[in-house]
């Protein structure tokens, strides 16, 4: 019986690479979204809500709910479930509407 999803589909991806989440290294596989890479590291939340400051991550998984917004390489409001991870990506927790650290 398959123990992992990769076993189940016989995945044989190229070499993994690193991205960072709030400064900590996270391993990603080529072809995975940023959200998938975070999930495989056991990270389920990378955003806090505007009003109550509550943690959120993926909900719909297909680009509809906008719960998975993250700051990716300095750009806020990217949907992590849609954006593919690339080597060296810097992901940071998005706070509120995501413009706190920006001069806009």
């Amino acid at each position: 019986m398959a123990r992992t999803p990769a076993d189940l589909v016989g995945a044989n991806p190229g070499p993994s690479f690193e991205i960072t989440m709030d400064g900590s290294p996270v391993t990603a596989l080529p072809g995975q979204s940023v959200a998938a890479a975070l999930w495989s590291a056991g990270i389920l939340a990378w955003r806090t809500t505007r009003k109550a400051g509550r943690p959120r991550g993926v909900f719909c998984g297909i680009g509809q709910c906008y719960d998975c917004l993250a700051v990716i390489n300095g750009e806020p409001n990217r949907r992590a479930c849609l954006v593919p991870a690339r080597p060296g990506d810097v992901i940071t927790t998005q706070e509120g509407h995501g413009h706190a650290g920006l001069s806009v």
Partner: protein
Amino acid sequence: MPASASDPYDLAVIGAGSAGLAGAVTAAELGLSVALLDASSQTGGQFYRHPAPSLKAARPEALHHDWAAFAELRRRLEQSDVSHLYGHHVWAVAKEDNGLWALHAVTGVDGTAERSVRVRARTVLLATGAYERQLPFPGWTLPGVVGAGGAQAMLKSGLVLPGRRVVVAGSGPLLLAVASSLAAAGAQVPAVIEASGYLGYARRPRALAANPQKLVEAAVHGAALLRHRVRLRTRSAVTEVHGTDRVEAVTVTRLDRDWRPVRGAGRRIECDALAVGHGLAPQIELATTLGCATRPLADGTSALALDGLQETSVPGLWAAGETGGVGGAQLARAEGELAGLASAARLYGYHVREGRVRELQRRRDRLRAFADAMTVAHAPGPGWTGWLTDDTDVCRCEEVSAGSIREAIADLGARDARTVKLLTRAGMGWCQGRMCGTAVACLAAREGAVESSAERRPFAVPVPLSVLASLDEPAGIEPDTAPGVDR
């Protein structure tokens, strides 16, 4: 491809799932020039979502049902001249003065490439599918609670699981498919919690008898669940999620026939994730903005009203698949093919192969009957609002609680979802009510009948202001090209 870049396509298809693919290849094989637009970089839609090529999955079909049907459509697409415009998020469809359709899209993996594209076509096939319908409950915003379809999507495309021990809950046949794939991929699934009974199907023996393959499908999932020792509990719901910053356990409560929680019947199940969903809602905003007629479904959602050849009430605009009511991939293929044939007949007066059309129509009607039985069997009972506490967030984006919605209704006199929205901001956030629309409509209806919500969203996806500003300046917008975007 049209002869020159400024010529319109004969047919533009929005959505590269089963319905869109079938429509596109059918029309192209009859000689039409076809553009196929989809937000994703891959074909297959949500049902046939699969890992990106660089994950090199040798057996993507292990996570799928009926993969051969998709492989065949993909082969026909590769052999056709269809222009596959991937990474195109269509935000509006409009009729221009010259009678042509203009499809406006933003490009990029998540539509933030800030490049706007306009594709012109003489006819359009809308095959945008559905999105998952959600009913809120205390704790549903905690990390670790994910859509059932969302868990399935993340598994199929990214080969990841939300946790090690995942409870699957909600209502509808998707739950069985999700639970069996999560279990097959190595997750422990302690239980599937279904709010309906399965007796609803027994009341429609004709629809069942006419669709034996659906019973086989159910049996396959059932057997997988047995093999993985997954328990199925019907007439029950997750009424609370426990945990501070992530899921630690859920409370499952028995429901009466109306989905009202039975007091004192709660039971705790330890888990680190919950995959939840209450069926699917047709994604039809591009069509409703154009004024297309809709039909109410038994579960309070709306689908497009279509004629015998899949045309909407707006001439030249066809629809297929879940946009006409959620019914699955097989139905989507039949409808897509019908629409492709119909658009070819309209444009070039082809004598449509009548035998084939009748065969497709018979298949469609049979599968539609089953889909309607399914919708009835899993329609949310009115009592579900009984599991909301006043501080349960109903609108995830704007953090609007059930309490403030009830206040808008009881104290401020709101009588419908629209007024609730204006008073509370529920449904005014990023997702534009896709996640909370059903819940708000049910709460607003109180004892009365729920108005089926054909949401009108002027923009089907968020559009940067710069894109709108550039619309009047021809130079600011890419002409009718078949652009590639970075994968």
